[in-house]
């Protein structure tokens, strides 16, 4: 089993990361890039939403509690504009209520901070499988010794 998704030629999954803590942005960006995805990261959620006007990303990974536009607003706004977009909510203040609210608003998944890089990569892989079902993505099969 290979953990590096290899997308079809130019159809790499595009991911937007939104978190007002730069460390989270940097580390997710680096991990997603390495896994072969296209990534843009924002510490300012308003700027992120503006960017979403230009380009419909495949997935958004957003923090919940942020200054200004919070994660639920990002979620509802993005879903309204691009209903096919998959949103993963990450938060350090995970409660049953916030999780319910996120799913109610159409979140793909809800991940509590701190999380493992492998967990969030798994989550993105599930999104990839949903929007590019197996067989259509031209995944190269590396040889396993």
């Amino acid at each position, binding site marked *: 089993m290979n*953990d*590096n998704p290899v997308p079809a030629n130019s159809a790499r999954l595009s991911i937007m990361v939104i978190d007002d803590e730069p*460390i989270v942005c940097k580390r997710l960006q680096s991990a997603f890039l390495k*896994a072969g995805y296209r990534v843009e990261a924002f510490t300012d959620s308003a700027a992120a939403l503006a960017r979403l006007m230009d380009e419909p990303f495949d997935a958004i990974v957003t923090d919940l509690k942020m200054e200004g536009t919070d994660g639920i607003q990002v979620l509802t706004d993005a879903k309204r504009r691009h209903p096919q977009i998959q949103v993963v909510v990450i938060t350090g203040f995970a409660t049953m209520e916030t999780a319910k609210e996120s799913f109610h608003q159409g979140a793909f998944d809800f991940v509590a901070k701190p999380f493992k890089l492998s967990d969030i990569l798994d989550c993105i892989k599930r999104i990839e499988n949903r929007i590019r079902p197996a067989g259509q993505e031209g995944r190269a099969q590396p040889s396993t010794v």
Partner: protein
Amino acid sequence: MFNGLKYVWPFRGMRRADIGMPFTVLFKKFTSILERNNRILEEMADTGDKLSGEYVFDRQYLVDASDRLTDQVFKLISDFSLLDNRKNADLFLAFERIRQQIREELAGHPAFALGSLVIPLFEASQDLRERGGGKMAVLSEIHNRLQLNTPDGFVITTKAFMDLMAHNGLLARVQEGFAGLSRQDPEGLKGLVEQIQQNIQAATIPPALAARIDAQLDILARHYPHRPLALALRSSAWGEDEESSFAGQYTSVLNVPRSRVLEAYRRVLASLYSLEAWQYRLDHDYREHETAMAVGCQMMATGTVSGVVQTYADLSDQPAILVASVRGLGAAVVGGDAPADTFYLARTPPYQLIRQELAEKTRQLIAVPGGGTAWEPVPDDLRQTASLTPPQLEALAQQAMAIECYYKRPQNIEWTFTDEGEPVILQAGPLRLQAAAPNSEPAVIDTTARASIVFAERGLVAQRGVAVGKVVVVRNDTDLERFPYGGILVSRYTSPRFSRVMHKARGIITDVGSPAGHMATVAREYRIPTVVNTQIATQRLNDGDEITLDATGNVVYRGNIANLDRFELTEEIVFEESYEYRLLRRLLKRISAFHLVDPKSANFTASACRTYHDITRYIHEKSVETLIRLSDEIGVGHSSAPRRLSTKVPLGLTVIDAGGGIAGSPTTGAITRDQVVSLPLGALLDGIDESAMWGTQPLSVDMGSFMSSLTRTFTASLAAPQKMGRNLAVVLEAYLNLHLRIGYHFTIIDAYMSDRINDNMIHFRFLGGVTDFLRRSRRAKFVAAVLEHFDFRVDVRGDLVIARIKKLPLARMTSRMRMLGGLIGYTRQLDARMHSDNEIARHVKLFTNAIGKAIGGSNE
């Protein structure tokens, strides 16, 4: 650990102890203390795990985790106060002190206003960055962690800088100056920094600081008596290492005689206020209060050949190590004042020479006796020849790659070879590489997609990172002794013994093991990419295989995937260098560092607690003491009273069953082994019996030992004669808390063993003895070696041994508990038997062989 354990209350109706509260209530407090104690230890371990880099966390997490621990520790103290029936003001004060320090760290208040004025480089603790500045922190890590040669000396700290500035009224002047400065006023800035520089050059050194520097110079003079002291004073500013562009802005003064050290110190300090440095700082939005300068004062390394290594240089077809060297001092290479020989070497062992370009070296920079440097001609026969030999090149490459591996960044390293031919690292810092443009087709994916995978997603990442190298399978100590530089260690088990080769290993892969184990902790200290518990590493990998271990993606590739290596080296953020990582390390120093090791010591007091771990440990010890005292007061005869355990060997053990640890409800006072249900206690008793290591005859003790035993004084709580033989075990079905005094030494075991692997743990402490300190220390070394053999994490301080093991399956925990039973028997009077250090190894061998047979093999 005690969650969900609902035990039948055995002490109902027991009479009040003289403490004025029913024993039942007190015992309940006691168990609640143990429970909270364990919860705190787990939470501390959990927080420590975040250092691995496997987790993404932010500052908020650090705030929350600190708050949770603070809350738990506060409640622990409150519980203990009730048990102890005291106010425990000292404990609350210590708690308040620690809590305040944690708050300061979280609030981002720099710690450089605290601490010592000077710190010897070779004794520096983990992180010198705050007090010693970036450059000296790196050098002390290279020496103390990676075990490479660096110049001896000391660092004059940021605290000393602050003191000097305050002593001369300069802090206020600087602040006023910058407050009144307009951003668009280059002339004003120039005038201001020149003024400050002059003030610093003319400043008075505070007498306390001058005295400390003098004392350090005395120490150096004693260590190096054969020539007059010649020193190099190097800048080591706070935050300097973060941006390499900073580093070039400051002054270093070479070959300084002792008489001119203070003058050179002021010169280096003044360079903190150079115009270039300030322009840079203002451009990057630094504030004046973020500025502080430490200065390294080091023995001048007067090499015969010196230069620079860059660990990552692009050759046309492959990345390589670049070495530039000249005869004499290396300043010529750095400053570009003389032509240098250039060598390109492969980036993997044995670091083969790929290409060399020799220069004609006509002159060299030398240190002039008495101070300063000068140019002199190179002897004719040395002008055309290579300045470095192949073995020297290999040694340099080895060391440079070890440094790159540790900092996970290509390095720019200054070095010299001493007259004796030893390489010495003078300075190291990150070498900026151009990363691939973001979101360009990532080459790394193309390469890894084509690469041959040995296995992927097997096991658990203990430390992220990428390592390229040859497999070295380690089966035994001989393999370990032969372990080469740059190898990737592959082994069936994890073992703390691997720490011996951590400074040489590039990566570690094991079949079994836990990321929470001791080896994983050490691997993180060394930042070695590590994957444990893969199940199949030793089957799939053979000695000499070249592999690329991607411990970030958790994949092992066949061959050298240079692209992956490069990706790692150009990653935007090196986690270990991030602010959050450093903050976590600083917090852990207040939380889980451990100082209160010896309950016998006079320092084992509430007010000596410096961390939450210390408080937890102190309360645990004192609670058990209190419980022993109270159980003495209950008296026998009561149906649920503490019961005597009859054993073949004279253990004198009293058992308190706190629930499900003893079978049936016997009315007689004494119980037997058959009635012991408690898994840990049962295994221990079996180990004592079956290992047959309990010598029946007390050994003769020689006269010296005998006299020592007569004069040795114990603290009252541990050795009051009436308590001798009053050994106590508190048990649950899966739990044991044991205080055992056999002869004159003291064993404490706290263990949990069940099918819930993650909860399994044994904490073992061993101390005391009848003979002199030297012999007790020998015995401690023996015990430590045995425990390490059985994969315990061991800490020895004098004659005290602390060992821990956790998260092994029940069968392996059981065999270890039986081994401890054997060990208790074997060590009963061992210190009287060991007359020299040589006997330690002999006894370790005797014991491990014998116990292997008794408990069914040492490695199951």
